[in-house]
């Protein structure tokens, strides 16, 4: 009986399997970095110029108790107890938030963008339902966080943080109450220290602004966001960084600033961007009359309205008007210039190299992802950590980056519906792609505009990495050609227009006092 012969082989296999499983580590769900000492404190940050607030003192907060007061001493004593011994959960929260938590909240904003970036499924009769902000939990869930929506969510979140932190710096140095660990050196701390005055807590401000803005942008996530904000603010005490009144003061400041930005959002035109079909049809008919062509969605069943035909009317941040950055226009379909571009597309897709395929996929940032603006936020956060920026300076990066990208999106959508240009799959019969073609006109490429604007801003702020950002921008733009969903002229003109948007943003940045 040789039944034993395969036993050794089986045992060997199990050993291999176990070894294999042992190597199966958890995959990263966020950016791993160590909390760092700030490269500068920007003590004069309270004099920088906010974007929406009229001044750094527009929002008032109560004066804190005096550093020598019994109340403050009692708060210090309470904090000392709180931070002396942390549970595993508390330590994990301290490590995760790392203090101000700006990077983490940016990641949360990216995560929500990815989670909500799904298009409505068709009904059985071939029609399509639409998300309803008044009933966000009804399918399709609100929002559909497509790039225009996500760009706007990022922009409000970041711009609000920046104005709130300018205000925070103003009060920190006005009241000049020392941070807890500087007031009492015996308090055990769990994070790198700095000499910023403690009131109000910048981390509490960031949590409150994030909670306020992100809850408005992603209403179904209100509870999740609130739980995160509470944990974040608690972590500041567990870390021995802030007393309770620092956090209370920061929280009320953050909420007040959030409200100002939400008021802008309520009347910025976004609620009209996703038009009903008659409006969409009239935009199309106008393009047909003016240009002799129009874009048509090619899906089955066809989607009756493209993504946000009137996003072009949404309020801009730094660009004076969309006409000032409007591109020259595409060549007429079937003109020699069009034919050249179409031939190139056919040729590229028929002979796609593995490198080109990888570029198309790497930058695809499509449905179910954080969109191109999310990708650029990721780069910005990595540069912020690399340069050890304090949260005020970090918020400045994110604010201008995201205002530039939303402006780029608004300008891009103007071009898209003004020129109403057919996609390759519409204009080139039989042409097939390796990426899904988005539900809006072709000219110009959104990837190109978002990326060019983002790269301009980041290159200006981080000149040492300018070449890298420009390479990213070019690759992101070209990825759309390799994917088969954009002509080269969509990309080239989008790039030019996106750079122009970036310049307007940089011009604003140059005079905000943060240079």
């Amino acid at each position, binding site marked *: 009986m040789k039944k034993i*012969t395969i036993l050794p082989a089986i045992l060997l296999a199990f050993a291999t399997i176990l070894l294999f499983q042992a190597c199966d580590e958890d995959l990263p769900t966020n950016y791993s970095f160590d909390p760092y000492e700030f490269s500068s404190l920007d003590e004069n940050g309270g004099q920088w110029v906010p974007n929406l607030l009229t001044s750094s003192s527009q929002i008032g907060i109560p004066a804190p108790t005096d550093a020598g007061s019994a109340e403050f001493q009692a708060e210090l004593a309470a904090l000392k107890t709180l931070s002396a011994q942390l549970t595993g959960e508390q330590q994990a929260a301290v490590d995760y938030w790392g203090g101000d938590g700006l990077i983490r909240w940016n990641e949360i904003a990216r995560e929500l963008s990815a989670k909500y970036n799904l298009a409505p499924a068709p009904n059985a009769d071939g029609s399509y339902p639409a998300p309803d902000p008044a009933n966000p939990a009804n399918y399709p869930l609100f929002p559909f966080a497509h790039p225009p929506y996500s760009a706007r969510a990022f922009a409000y979140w970041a711009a609000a943080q920046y104005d709130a932190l300018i205000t925070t710096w103003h009060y920190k140095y006005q009241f000049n109450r020392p941070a807890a660990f500087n007031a009492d050196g015996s308090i055990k701390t769990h994070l790198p220290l700095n000499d910023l005055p403690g009131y109000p807590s910048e981390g509490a401000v960031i949590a409150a602004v994030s909670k306020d803005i992100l809850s408005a942008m992603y209403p179904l996530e209100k509870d999740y966001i609130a739980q995160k904000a509470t944990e974040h603010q608690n972590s500041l005490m567990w870390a021995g960084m802030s007393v309770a009144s620092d956090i209370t003061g920061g929280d009320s400041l953050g909420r007040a600033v959030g409200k100002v930005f939400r008021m802008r959002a309520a009347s910025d035109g976004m609620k009209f961007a996703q038009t009903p079909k008659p409006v969409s049809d009239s935009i199309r008919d106008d393009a047909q009359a003016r240009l002799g062509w129009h874009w048509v969605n090619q899906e*089955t069943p066809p989607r009756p309205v493209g993504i946000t035909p009137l996003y072009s009317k949404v309020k801009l941040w730094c660009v004076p008007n969309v006409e000032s950055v409007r591109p020259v226009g595409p060549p007429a379909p079937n003109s020699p210039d069009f034919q050249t571009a179409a031939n190139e597309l056919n040729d590229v897709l028929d002979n796609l190299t593995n490198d080109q395929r990888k570029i198309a996929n790497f930058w695809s940032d499509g449905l179910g992802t954080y969109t191109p603006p999310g990708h650029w936020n990721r780069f910005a956060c990595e540069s912020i950590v690399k340069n050890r920026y304090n949260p005020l300076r970090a918020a400045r990066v994110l604010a201008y980056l995201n205002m530039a990208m939303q402006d780029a999106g608004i300008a891009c959508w103007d071009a898209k519906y003004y020129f109403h240009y057919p996609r390759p799959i519409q204009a080139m019969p039989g042409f097939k792609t*390796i990426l899904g073609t988005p539900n809006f006109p072709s000219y110009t490429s959104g990837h190109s505009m978002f990326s060019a604007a983002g790269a301009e801003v980041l290159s200006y702020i981080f000149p040492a990495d300018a070449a890298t950002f420009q390479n990213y921008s070019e690759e992101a733009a070209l990825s759309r050609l390799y994917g088969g969903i954009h002509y080269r002229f969509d990309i080239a003109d989008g790039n030019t227009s996106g750079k122009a948007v970036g310049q307007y943003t940089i011009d604003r940045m140059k005079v905000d006092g943060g240079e």
Partner: protein
Amino acid sequence: MKNILHISILAYLLALTLPDEVLAQTPSDGLMMDRGQICFAALYTHDTWDEYWEGTLKRTNGNIGTLTRQTVMPMFAFGLTDRLNVIASLPWVRTQASGGQMRGVSGFQDIGLWVKGTAYNNTLGSGTLSLFGVLGMTLPTSDYLEDYAPFSLGLGCPDFSIRATPQYQLDMGLYVRGTAAYMIRGNATIERDYYYTTHGVYSDQVDMPNAMSYGATLGYWLFDYTLQVEASYDGLNSYGGHDIRRQDAGFPSNKMDFTRAGLFMHYFPSFFPGFGIVGQYNQILTGRNVGQSTAFTAGITYQFGLWGAGETVNTVN
């Protein structure tokens, strides 16, 4: 953006590629090659579906229409000893959709290697009771993109499996067989470094769910062991993984489950010793994150002695 919005289109992408299961008939059957015997098989499979399960929701997708997957699979089995065989295969796959505007793909999928042994083989009553054990692995060969549902050629990950196949065959040719395999999968590597499953992941690595496959077969050798016919019921359960969200595209680490019914025949014409003709039909009955595929397979086999004293025709336990 753009892509982003691919909204639509995208929806389609769901992946239905199950390397070990679709094609590896031989590792799970009840046949052994005698020492020195070698068997070549060339199989063609035509697999189509026009409905799929998005999570547990069964639906069609106009941007896919009918998905067709054609597979050409050379396979060989070799008797190292009477009780120990090795099996290898390398499928070539082509996929295309009748709807939408996305390109299909083609290329070599995963090379498969199996070692199959007879763990037990004894007469019992008027028949024979056998137990076969199989260790196997499949490895992606070409640089195909697994993050391209539903067109992707395979799951894009290494897959190690251990299988047990008990069989009882009456001397008159009727047999029943069960089979169960556990598949341990390594990571797939995709071409982007952020994706969302039930949460965001900042990596180009995809943690693939392990899976269990199982099956039961009733078979009969007819006409003096020249025609083998079988009816089977089998299935796959993934451990872990996630559902395709509403109107999202499929992803390699989706939780893919199915049950399936099949018919199989293998004919060994007595006038052409060594040759065999294979036909197979499989129908997915229920599923989750897979297409409801209907598959037809046709092929030929040729068996001969390389050395040793084996017979030149099929060897039945």
